[in-house]
Structure formats: C-alpha cells, structure tokens
C-alpha cells in the first residue's frame, strides 16, 4: 500500500480541487471536476508513468441529473490501476476529448457518444459505432426502456 499512498499524496499536493484516495491494494480513485480531467490525466501520463488508458466508463446517475465519466489508467511499473472520475451535467453532456493525450480514447469516446449521448469536442470521429439508423434515446441511458422499445419495434404477443 506504500506506492498507492505515495501516489495519492503526490496527486493531492499537485492539484487543488480533487480528492484522491486508496480504494484497496492496486486501486486508486481520484474524484475531480470536469475541468481538471485533462490536466490530471496528462500529469499521470507524463509525470507518473501511467501510459495505458484501459477504459473510459460512463455511469448514468439519473436521480442526480448527472453522468459520471470514469477514466481508467494503469501503469506497468507500479501495477496500480487509477480511476479518475468526474461528473457532468446530464442535460448538456459535453466533455473535452482526451484523444491528444491517449490514442485509444478515440473509440471509447465514440462508444460513449453513441450509447449515452455525451459530446466530446476534439474527437475526430464520433460517428455511430454499433447501431444503424438509431433515432431513439441513446440506449444505455437509464430512461431508455428496453422492454417498451422491443414491444414497439418487434412483433410481440403475450
């Protein structure tokens, strides 16, 4: 837990307005504001050796009116997996693209754009990845009703 604690202290000293904590062995969670995300990720990559962007997740917190974006980055040297999180407004979901920092962010942002409707200005290609001619709500939003959609779209008899 030494290396995890050290990373948390470095992060808390370097940035104001974020809260970093050790979740468990090899896991660090950083809660930041959306404006801080690119600089935190750039610092993690350039100054701390977190070269691998593992995943970008989006969680719909419909009761708070917010989306939570979770950037997963990992370091080979330390074996630690860091989750950098920020909440954005659900009605105006816009987040600066991090493609200039991490190349694999491109398909992940494209996926979130399609499935949650979050806009990523700066991403070169946000065309739909999976769904053809989709005119409904982005399907992974909590207010998209899978059952009602299936009944409406396909022949359905009880």
């Amino acid at each position: 837990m030494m290396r995890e604690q050290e990373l948390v202290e470095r992060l808390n000293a370097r940035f104001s307005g974020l809260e970093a904590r050790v979740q468990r062995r090899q896991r660090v969670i950083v809660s930041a504001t959306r404006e801080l995300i690119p600089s935190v990720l750039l610092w993690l990559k350039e100054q701390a050796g977190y070269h691998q962007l593992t995943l970008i997740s989006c969680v719909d917190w419909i009761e708070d009116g917010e989306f939570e974006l979770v950037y997963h980055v990992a370091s080979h040297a330390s074996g630690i997996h860091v989750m950098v999180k920020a909440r954005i407004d659900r009605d105006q979901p816009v987040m600066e693209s991090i493609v200039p920092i991490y190349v694999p962010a491109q398909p992940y942002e494209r996926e979130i754009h399609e499935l949650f409707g979050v806009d990523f200005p700066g991403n070169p290609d946000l065309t739909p990845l999976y769904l053809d001619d989709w005119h409904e709500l982005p399907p992974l939003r909590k207010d998209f009703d899978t059952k009602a959609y299936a009944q409406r779209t396909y022949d359905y008899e009880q």
Partner: protein
Amino acid sequence: MSNRLNLFFGPQHAGVSGNFNITVTLEGETIVGARIHLGFLHRGFEKMLENVGFLQGFPFVCRINVMDPDHNEQIYAMAIEELAGIEVPPRAHYIRTLVLEMARLSTHLLWLNGMAGAMGFYTVNHWAMLARDEILELFSLISGARVYHIYILPGGVRRDLPDGFAAKMTAFLDDFEQTLHDFDVALFNNRVFRKRTDGVGVITQEEALRDGMTGANLRATGLARDVRREEPYAAYADLDFEIPTRIEGDSYARAMVIREEMHQSVRIIRQVLDKLPDGPAWNRTPNPFKWNIPPGEAYVRVESGRGELGGYAVTDGSNRIRRMNYRGPSLPHGLVVLPRILVGMTVPDIAHMVSSLNISVPEIDR
C-alpha cells in the same frame, strides 16, 4: 484521386475472424486507408445486465466473447464478490484456474485454426479444431455444456469436478503435448509460414503501449506484462509458470508467444491437478431474488486469451447492477491498431492481420 478503389471486406469471411466489415481504400494493390464497421453482432449485453438480477447475468456475460467465455464469467463473479464481500474457498480458486487455463487453450487453438486457415494450412487448421473439440468435451464433463459453461458463480463454482476427471484431463494433456510438437513441425517451423509472417505487421513496444495493447500482442514486443503476474487472481499466485516474450513485434513473434503460452497452460493445468486442495467448491450466496448488494464500485481484471480483460461494476444498493462495463482487449487491437497497421499492406494481408492480432469481434460489439 481517380485511381482509388473502395473494397468492402467482410462481414462474412470464411475464417473465424469475420463478423465485421473493413472498408479498405486501395491504390493499385496497396491499402492506403482502412475503416472498421461494427454492429453485426451487437447484442446490448451491458444494457441487459442492468435489467436482470446478479445471478441472471451469467448467461449473458459468457456470450460476450464467443471464443473465450470463461474469462468473462470470472470477471463478473470477481466484481460481485468484491462488491458483496464474498469469500471464495481455496478449492474453488483452483478449479477456476483449471477452467480458465482450459479456456485459454481452447481460444488459442481457435486462433491457430483461423491463423492457419488464413494462410492455407488447412491440415493444421483441422488439427487445431480437433484438439479444441477434445477440450470442449472435457468442459461438458465439468459443466454439462460445451461452449457456454455458466460454471463460475460468485463464491466459487457451480459444482465440484466429476469423479475421474483428473485422469481424463491428464490423458488429454499427454496427447496434446505431442500435438503441440506436430504444430511446430507442420506450421511454426515451416518455411512457408516463416516467410509469410517474418517481419510482417511489425509493432514496436512504444507503439504498442501508446495504442493500449495488452496480452500476447504486447508481449511479442518484449514487455513481460501479464495480469496473472501483476495482480494474481484465482490460484495463480501459488503456481509456477513463465511469461513468454519475443522482441521482434511481428506476426511471427505474436504467433510464437501464443504457441509458448499453450505450453505454459499445460504446465499450469498439471500443477492444478496435483495441488487441488480439499474442501467445498462453493460458498453459498444469498437468495438471488432478495439479493441486494451495497453501493460501491469495483474494477476487476484478468488475463484472458487476448490480453487484459476488465470489468468496471457499479452497484447502488438495489438488486440490480447499476452499470457493468466490459473492457475487452480486442477493442484497441481492432479499432486502433488494425486500421493503422493495414496501411501499406495488400489485400491478402487483411485476413492474416485480423488473425495475427487475434481480434475477437463479439468482444468489441458486445
């Protein structure tokens, strides 16, 4: 440019590599651009997981990767165990390791089937399929099913190993070691295969790290990175195995890393059978209809046959999972690396590269 031609490749390719469409732009024989089109296999599993109970999710998650289903079950079970605080008995850890290594062998053999098929080595193609089929038969002894086992559950495995399983497994492994040697003679040391793969599709370690590559594709560039070593799960911390690496980063290096991994899997399975502890194989979990998991989040990861497979799970205290996001190794391999590496190649290289990068399309599409 008037002499450019757009060629639609797929989605139905004869090999196991199909199921997505690559639009390649050609200038004469040379590929100058490639674009991947997905969606032919999109089943919306992540959404469906949010609509069912925790145990009901298992028949969905194994289908995320058709070739390597057990690692997806392991991820889902590990996430639920971490969030609900469930202990796994030692025997179950060993049985899981056995199942996961059998899954690794079977997915590597399917890769071999595709790779050999893409180059016209149809004999090796059939040998690989035959060996895989024997593993599927062993799987059906354990779980009652050949392809989708739904065998790993939170708290352990669904049932203990059947009587006499160790002898059958050992007999297969003895036979399989001979088959591995046959693969060497017929394919890996074959001059035609060497000429076709040496120096083709070279990826440097720098590029591999930049593009988020993991698994055998990364290890073929000289970096011994493996989740089984970096963050041991199941029983891997107690077992002795090597992480094979190569430094060339080309198609041949990737093939040889996978070939050597099959050998390591055999070693691991033999150790598991030797060391298998006694005790229960499953810790009872609560009534699945009244099972609420306290709010929390967890990222869990395993080394699947293709690289780091991860799962980000969020719970909110209800009896449904709030979000389960799968991180498949094939997404960066297929959507970042493949279009880049195809530029400058020719059309016959496309099937070769899809196989060489070991891309699993259902895992990307989910």
